[in-house]
């Protein structure tokens, strides 16, 4: 895999089918439907539980807006990921082009996915810092690899954004 800047886009070239599949999973991973832990993390309370009125109003007015904001980001990413529909040669390496105008949406979607996965699997600090763990093994190991791979992409996007400033 190779990541480079091409005019107003970030190109991820030579994406092998495994990594391409992990990228395809970003939108679903970002919006887990069956994980209360992920839901709790993505929509955390704005104050201590004693602030009952604020917390209740937050749930009523702010959470739906945040949900829309997050969904809009994942939709942008989902559209960009259409490029990975390699129908003619399913096992060939492919290229993904991320327009820099979509960088914020990608950062958000990758972050949503990382936070949701980490909350679902309750990864420890030690696990999250272990970048050499093999992805081959349990579903948990694969999810940890997913968190780290998405984090690596976030770093690449952030570096390119800083280069723009």
């Amino acid at each position, binding site marked *: 895999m190779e990541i480079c800047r091409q005019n107003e886009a970030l190109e991820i070239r030579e994406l092998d089918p495994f990594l391409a599949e992990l990228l395809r999973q970003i939108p679903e991973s970002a919006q887990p439907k069956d994980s209360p832990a992920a839901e709790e993390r993505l929509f955390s309370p704005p104050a201590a539980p004693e602030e009952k009125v*604020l917390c209740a109003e937050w749930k009523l007015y702010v959470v739906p807006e945040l949900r829309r904001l997050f969904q809009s980001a994942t939709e942008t990413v989902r559209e960009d990921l259409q490029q990975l529909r390699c129908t003619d040669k399913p096992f060939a390496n492919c290229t993904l082009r991320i327009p820099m105008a979509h960088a914020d949406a990608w950062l958000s979607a990758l972050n949503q996915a990382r*936070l949701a996965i980490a909350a679902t699997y309750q990864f420890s600090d030690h696990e999250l810092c272990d970048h050499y763990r093999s992805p081959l093994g349990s579903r948990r190991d694969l999810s940890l690899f997913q968190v780290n791979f998405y984090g690596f992409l976030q770093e690449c996007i952030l570096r390119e954004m800083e280069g723009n400033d």
Partner: protein
Amino acid sequence: MLTFFMNRLRRNRAAQCAVLPVIDAPCSALEMPAIEKQEATSEEIEMPWNVVVHNDPVNLMSYVTMVFQRIFGYPRERAEKHMLEVHHNGRSILWSGMRERAELYVQQLHGYLLLATIEKIG
């Protein structure tokens, strides 16, 4: 989100009406019982509040720094100082002031998926 702040604004205005000695038109006698309940809220609003960001092992340090720069307009050095404080001490106070603005900051921080809360000072 606009609805949230409009609602708060209405409540605050109602609370202000309740403590003002001058009776103005929108504060009719019918509204008074509800307004009475809001007086404490008005006092709370005048108290300074902290915007606190809490540690999160998943969010990248570079991402957190960028978010602090964007939301608070801090220079990179100051944003990094706060980020490191969060990382090492588990939390950092990013801003202090009026409650409504503090709530707005927390809302923006949640939009970037940081763990943020507002806390009463004192």
